[in-house]
């Protein structure tokens, strides 16, 4: 298990991370979210031992992370981290050997992954000759070459088309099934929502939201009701707890309510109306929660 305990990091007088704590169990995919400059990359660098923390503790299976365990870690950085003058094969051998793998094992795994990502033809091409998307694939492949116990993915989908995102997702899910601990950062909330069971949202290095996504959504009481039919909008507006009504089409509206308690009151009124063909209580998306939490934090 990866355990990050009360980690604080100062750059001079600037506090980049403030008492961050979380843990990731085997087979778990963990989301680390935040706007640019929130402290995600700093957290990853601290986990990888590239940055000294000011205080706190980071352990992998109860041992501090040092060069004796880094062979079991895979790291995909937000920016391209490839030696562009090398060929794909040379790059894989270079990073794979640094992970303690034998050349035979590297080439065997490389062939498997290149086939899977449908880029076998690029094996002997120089990285600089590849497109942005293919470079990202190579970066991902070199990060998972060693089938890492702990995989850190900083914005793994940048520069990828929807088709390739699916390929990445499959591979990430497969690694998770095999027991890899995966920490994942992305600006795309739909990806996070799809993968992660647990997350932390950082704002200016501070944890503003943390926990299981399901629980978070439960706790986040704000819900939307989509209605279709012959409904008197004025009557809905008069119900206590209704914050806003958005006209979606001639006969469809979206009712923004302050909490799930209001759902019953709205339903009581709607059940009296005629020709109602739709009544859907929508869960808030992670995107809504993220925007709301980040917004609240900035307001404070």
């Amino acid at each position, binding site marked *: 298990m990866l355990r990050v305990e009360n980690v604080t990091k100062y750059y001079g007088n600037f506090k980049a991370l403030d008492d961050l704590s979380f843990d990731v169990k085997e087979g778990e995919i963990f989301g680390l979210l935040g706007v640019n400059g929130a402290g995600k990359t700093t957290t990853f660098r601290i986990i990888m*031992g*590239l*940055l000294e923390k000011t205080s706190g503790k980071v352990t992998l299976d109860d041992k501090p992370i040092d060069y004796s365990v880094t062979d079991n*870690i895979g*790291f995909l950085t937000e920016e391209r*981290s490839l*030696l562009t003058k090398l060929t794909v094969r040379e790059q894989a051998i270079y990073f794979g*050997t640094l992970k303690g793998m034998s050349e035979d094992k590297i080439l065997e795994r490389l062939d498997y992954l290149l086939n899977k990502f449908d880029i076998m033809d690029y094996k002997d091409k120089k990285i600089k000759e590849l497109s942005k998307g293919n470079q990202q694939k190579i970066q991902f492949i*070199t990060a998972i070459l060693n089938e890492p116990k702990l995989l850190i993915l900083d914005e793994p989908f940048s520069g990828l088309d929807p088709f390739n995102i699916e390929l990445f997702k499959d591979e990430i899910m497969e690694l998770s099934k095999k027991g890899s601990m995966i920490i994942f950062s992305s600006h795309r909330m739909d990806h996070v929502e799809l993968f992660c069971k647990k997350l932390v949202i950082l704002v200016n290095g501070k944890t503003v939201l943390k926990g299981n996504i399901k629980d978070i959504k439960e706790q986040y009481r704000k819900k939307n009701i989509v209605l279709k039919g012959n409904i008197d909008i004025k009557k809905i507006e008069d119900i206590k707890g209704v914050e806003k009504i958005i006209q979606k089409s001639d006969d469809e509206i979206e009712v923004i309510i302050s909490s799930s308690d209001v759902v019953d009151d709205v339903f009581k009124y709607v059940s009296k109306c005629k020709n109602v063909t739709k009544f859907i209580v929508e869960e808030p998306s992670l995107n809504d929660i993220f925007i709301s939490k980040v917004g609240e934090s900035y307001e404070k």
Partner: protein
Amino acid sequence: MKNKLKFLISTSLKKKTKTKWFMVANVVLALLVIGIINIDSIITFFGGDFNEKIKVYLVDETDTFYDDFSEYVELVEKDLYDGDGSHFEIVDSDKSIDELKKLIKEDEKESVIVNIYNKDDSEIGSKLISFSTMDTMDYQILSSAIMQVSNIYTISSLGLTEEQYSKLINPIEIEREIMDEDINDEDENTNMIMTTVFPVVILPFFMLTIFLVQFIGSEINDEKSTRSMEIIISNVSPKVHFAAKVIANNLFVLIQSILLVFYSIIGFLVRKGLGGDSIMNGLGSEVGKTLKTLTTGSMGDKLVPIIILTFILMVLTFIAYSLIAGILASMTTNPEDFQQLQTPIVIVLLLGYYLSIMAGMFKGSLFIKILSFVPLISAVLSPSLFVLGQIGIIEITISILIMFATLYLLVKYGLRIYKVGILNYSSTGMWKKMFKSVKNKD
């Protein structure tokens, strides 16, 4: 971690040696070295002739000086060229000046006319005619010979006896005595050695140091600018990474040095095969002669310690330069920054180079002796002063010890800068960060 170090070293070495540009550069270097050693044969091949004699038409209107003139020209040449044959063919001509001028103008543009004529009873006049300007040395030889025959004419016209005459013209033997017992007269040759042999040794050192600095810098810079440094450092410690760069690049310099020596050997063998002078006379007869002086005279005793000590100092200095280059490269974020930071290294190198060449001019001043202990400069200045007899083995050993201390400090504090520098991508407050990292013991 040892295997990773070995892997990083071999990868870095392969990256430099298994490229077409390394092959191209070495083919060019080999051709240049072999060409320089055999430059006389190349010039001859393209029509130059080092053995072609200059024809001197002596038009002696007094009809008495041919023997004296020929004899004196031969004597002066023997002195100047160490008995290496005559460069002139003296022809006692009975043709008129105009006829000879026509001949030179039309067929023999390299030939010259020496016209000696009676000015009055006790004085002769002379004229030296050539188609174009003459080589300074050739002009000196001929004008000295003319001067000599003029003296003979004047002396004989004064009615001196043969004994008086020979006393007048015989050169005086100068006995040389130097009071400082530590210096013998052969040490006077050292200035010549400093200006001929030493640049031959220092120049490759200079060239290889530049290679070393540039290779380390560009490699680290490349890994930084592509951001692959983060992946590398997350797998190997900065210490291992730094050590790999220093070892790999020094090994590369060693390989390149061995190749240069190999090319030189081929050059000498080609020279021998072409029927040129002995191997010692390669690189031009001047250097050959100086090497002979070095190995046969009292310098021969100094040669063994100087070679060993210079080798140790140069190896240590190579390592120091590579450490400095690595530290500086770690602080930069793009190749342009490194190019600028590398300028002070080149200036220090040049300073050492010029100081060592001019060492003899400083006549053992305290200032130059102190400079010979300064790390980086000492690799070339210390041996120079040692050859000149201005410092002894103790001083050069002190230079080596200072170099060891410098390496220790560079490793200890440089590694701290390197650790911070290689993962720093911002040039803002760079120096502040570096000074702070020096104080940080972690």
